[in-house]
């Protein structure tokens, strides 16, 4: 080697080459192996399009279609793909919006408080719920706007103008929904209330994915791997409601101009035939873009239409409660069918009688004539059985708890937790603790809570519970949890009252007499024996509420009903005719007393107007 003292430097140079190559391999390992080990990387040549499933259809019990799907269009934007020369003005023109609205919308999208899902990489919903004619122009010139895509999906539409409370509606999911269930993405729809919400999982189906190839200029080149990796959307399950939509129509018509509710149940199955609350709204106003506007309007309406009076309003059951009182006392042998109590009419103490009839009174007469003293005496005897009835009596408290358990076995004073009806209020059959807090542990006795004997005072139940209680009597001692899904028979959800069937026959007899001789005698259905009981719920804020419970036919009950008309006074005047008309329509398929029907549907309980003054 001549002239070379630096041959060792070959190792330095080789070392540099090795170092560089190793460093790059480490970088590549990090990029291609470590970074990709978590989650999927598809790059931007493959776009994953969500395929939205058709939501399940909703039918009534007679297979008439109530709720179906209707296509709408959404304009989607991926900010990162929009080119710098995006022609905003032309875009606005095609969508028929102004530049100001465009800017506002972009600003809203960027606001992570309003839109926590904001990202420049993912599609954002620029405009939603557009009709075909709204996007037709844009569709034609879509190729000019890189990063913009039109997505179609479906919203709900309704074949009926009724059952708004039952059906509910769908709306865009909020951030809480997304956090709770990662099925949802921003901009998805889900059932917000009613059946749509309760059966969301069944109705929504399963989203699919379509993998499309597109080139660097955004042009779709077809399915990735010929669609091998596509996942088709699974349509939601259709569902059938227990509701009879025609009956529901009749019920809502009868409640027109009134505040109140009607609940009809098929006693043998617990199926809810009709569930009407008034005032209500037409479900068709909750379609698409109108929903939020309509919803706000309803929310601020003074008559509170969003409040489902059939399941959320609680009332004292009034005299309708006497049927329960009779059954509980009979079962405990506090009274027998022949037990008689004296009635002094309006002069009776401590509770006066509001009806004029003979004295003394037997059970059947007591029910027929809705004799207050009779049921006060029976209740007092029940509570004081085996004790002296003093305030110090521990036994009296025990008796009260016993009584309360019996009453609640009728489904009163608590929510039906196994039911699909939402929302529900529980109501209140006051507990021992409730009175202990109110009067002190030794501060109350039978006389203190005398109002309970005739269904007034602290006792509160919902119309749904009243209807269910009626079904229990119609069934002769048990009820099946009231429900709305016809496919779920709920046969296993039988709730026994534990009261002897004999006594039910007796009470039914009494209820039949109500409709022939008693407070309900003015209304009837030809050839059908009706059992019923009127009631008047005392209302400290205004006129009393008119209540009626009943079922028909007497010997083979097909329908049990509860009607509450607020501020309408006596049960007999409003609730009875409404209930008989509903039952008649259900049993016969038509209404014979058309004049009565006419009168009931057109007249309004004017109290609402009076209250406003």
């Amino acid at each position, binding site marked *: 080697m001549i002239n070379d*003292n630096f*041959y060792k430097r070959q190792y330095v*140079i080789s070392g540099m080459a090795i170092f560089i*190559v190793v460093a790059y391999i480490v970088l590549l390992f990090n990029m*291609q192996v470590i970074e990709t080990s978590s989650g999927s990387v598809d*790059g931007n040549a493959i776009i994953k399009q969500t395929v939205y499933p058709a939501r399940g259809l909703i039918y009534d019990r007679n297979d008439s279609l109530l709720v179906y799907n209707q296509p709408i269009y959404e304009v989607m934007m991926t900010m990162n793909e929009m080119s710098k020369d995006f022609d905003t003005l032309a875009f606005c023109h095609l969508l028929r919006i102004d530049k100001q609205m465009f800017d506002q919308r972009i600003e809203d999208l960027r606001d992570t408080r309003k839109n926590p899902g904001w990202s420049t990489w993912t599609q954002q919903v620029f405009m939603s719920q557009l009709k075909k004619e709204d996007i037709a122009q844009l569709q034609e010139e879509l190729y000019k706007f890189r990063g913009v895509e039109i997505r179609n999906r479906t919203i709900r539409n309704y074949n009926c103008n009724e059952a708004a409370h039952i059906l509910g509606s769908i709306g865009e999911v909020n951030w809480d929904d997304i956090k709770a269930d990662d099925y949802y993405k921003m901009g998805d729809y889900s059932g917000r209330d009613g059946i749509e919400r309760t059966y969301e999982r069944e109705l929504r189906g399963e989203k699919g994915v379509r993998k499309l190839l597109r*080139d660097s200029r955004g042009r779709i080149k077809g399915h990735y791997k010929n669609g091998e990796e596509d996942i088709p959307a699974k349509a939601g399950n259709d569902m059938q409601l227990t509701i009879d939509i025609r009956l529901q129509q009749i019920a809502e018509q009868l409640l027109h101009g009134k505040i109140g509710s009607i609940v009809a149940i098929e006693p043998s199955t617990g199926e809810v035939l009709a569930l009407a609350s008034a005032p209500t709204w037409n479900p068709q106003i909750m379609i698409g873009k109108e929903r939020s506007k309509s919803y706000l309007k309803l929310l601020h309406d003074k008559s509170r239409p969003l409040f489902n009076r059939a399941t959320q309003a609680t009332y004292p059951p009034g005299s309708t409660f006497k049927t329960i009182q009779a059954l509980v006392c009979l079962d405990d042998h506090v009274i027998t069918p022949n037990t008689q109590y004296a009635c002094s009419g309006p002069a009776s103490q401590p509770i006066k009688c509001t009806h004029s009839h003979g004295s003394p009174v037997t059970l059947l007469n007591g029910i027929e004539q809705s004799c207050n003293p009779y049921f006060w005496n029976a209740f007092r005897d029940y509570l004081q059985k085996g004790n002296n009835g003093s305030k110090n009596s521990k036994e009296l408290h025990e008796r009260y708890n016993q009584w309360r358990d019996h009453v609640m076995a009728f489904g009163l004073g608590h929510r039906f937790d196994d039911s699909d009806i939402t929302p529900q209020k529980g109501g209140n059959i006051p507990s021992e603790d409730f009175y202990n807090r109110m009067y002190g542990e030794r501060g109350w006795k039978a006389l203190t809570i005398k109002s309970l004997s005739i269904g007034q005072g602290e006792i509160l139940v919902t119309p749904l519970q009243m209807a269910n209680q009626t079904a229990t009597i119609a069934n002769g001692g048990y009820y099946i949890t009231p429900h709305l899904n016809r496919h779920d028979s709920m046969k296993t959800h039988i709730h026994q009252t534990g009261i002897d069937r004999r006594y039910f026959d007796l009470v039914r007899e009494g209820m039949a007499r109500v409709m022939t001789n008693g407070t309900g005698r003015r209304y009837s259905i030809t050839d059908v024996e009706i059992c019923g009981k009127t009631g008047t719920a005392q209302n400290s804020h205004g006129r009393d509420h008119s209540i009626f419970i009943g079922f028909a036919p007497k010997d083979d009950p097909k329908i049990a009903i509860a009607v509450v008309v607020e501020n309408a006074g006596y049960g007999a005047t409003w609730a009875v005719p409404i209930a008989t008309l509903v039952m008649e329509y259900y049993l016969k398929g038509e209404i014979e007393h058309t004049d009565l029907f006419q009168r009931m549907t057109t007249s309004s309980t004017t109290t609402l107007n009076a209250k406003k003054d």
Partner: protein
Amino acid sequence: MQRRTKLINNIDWWTILLYLGLCIFGWVNISGASYSYDHPSLIDFSTVAGKQLIWMGGALLLGGIILLLDHKIYDTTAYFAYAAVLVLLIITRFFPPVKGSYSWISFSSSFRLQPAEFAKLTTALAIAKYMGQYDFKMRSWRDLIKPLIILGIPAMIIMVWENETGSALVFAAFMLVFYRQGMSGYVLLCGIAAIALFILAVKYSDVPIPIGTGTVGMLSCMLLLLATGIFFVLQENRYRMEKWIITGSVAGLYGICLLINIWVPVNFNWVSLAIVVLLAIYLIAANLYKRNPVLVMVGLFMLLSVAYTNGCNYIFHHVLRDHQRSRIELILGMRDDPHGVGYNVNQARIAITTGRFWGKGWHQGTQTQMKFVPEQATDFIFSTVGEEWGFVGTAGVLVFYLIFILRLIHIAERQKDNFARIYGYSVASIFLLHLTINIGMVLGVLPVIGIPLPFFSYGGSSLWGFTMLLFILLRLDAAGAEQMR
């Protein structure tokens, strides 16, 4: 006839095998990158892949001719070839530009040459010839002036006249050749230090440190310099207590500052700067009684580096205009710009990432097929390798390349003739620099500098240029082996 058999025996067939391997896999990827999803056809001479096949045939022919020619002509014609290419470089200006760059000589719309690709070759020959003379010795920096001029002329023409910064940058490869031939290693180190300090100081100049005040950029630069200083202190005073006094007081100063920082926020930038300056002054002063000029050099290096770092910072933040600053910010990855300069790198990164471990397979790379990476058949060909062949492919190509370059260094080292050895090192260095800059660019760790990946990037000029570069070395090597026997 006898000479011919000898030649076949003396050729380094390993290198030719590596060369063919790289070319074939390169073609496979060009085919992948230019494959048309709409009109799939494998061999069609109107497509990019088809044209490259023709270029490859030409390259083999060229290689064969080079091997058959007498080895002496490369030595004797070196200066002439060098001058001829300079002329070619200059006349490119009179041909129509391609994509804004005046670096082509067009014969027809589909056939044109890029003389810059051949300038590397002729410059390597010229430098080898000059430095290979018997009377050339690398004694001081003055001996470097002429070689620097030889490489400087074509580099300047390419950079200024043709506006091809990337191609000009390749001429930096000759620094490695100079180093091998005796240039001080400190020059290389200083060059690397200057780049490292610049990147650190500028890139992290706005990143605050977690305790006290100060920036990650300046602090890390100062700590780097401090470490250098301490290293020399420890080495110089191996057997003396002095080293403990110095390191102890540096540690103590930092301890006190940390303590003060509990009540008053301390600016660790300035504290570190002061310590580095003090240490540098100590090192220079220590020379007075230690009589070690290295210490003075180190001390001066530290002081100059402090000035350089702060200067870079100041110029970046206060002197540069906005567009100049943003250009640097993009290059250093301080800012995302998916639409602008960062677009290529971003798309290349996505493509490579989606390749994962095994790759998607030939013609299966969706990013590649859908043409997301601009220039994917030329400068960004490595992204196709990454997507279609995965980590196995990218690591494989890099390892293959490493073996190839190490083989070239080995060949260069075994040359007895100075001309051949210097030329061999030039070849190895040029390949190494191309590999480093091209892959670094695709991976996003180096700025976007448009130079090809040898044998992979589509292009006849570059393929022919690299082939000639390589085969001349093989011819010289064979001649050397011939003389041995």
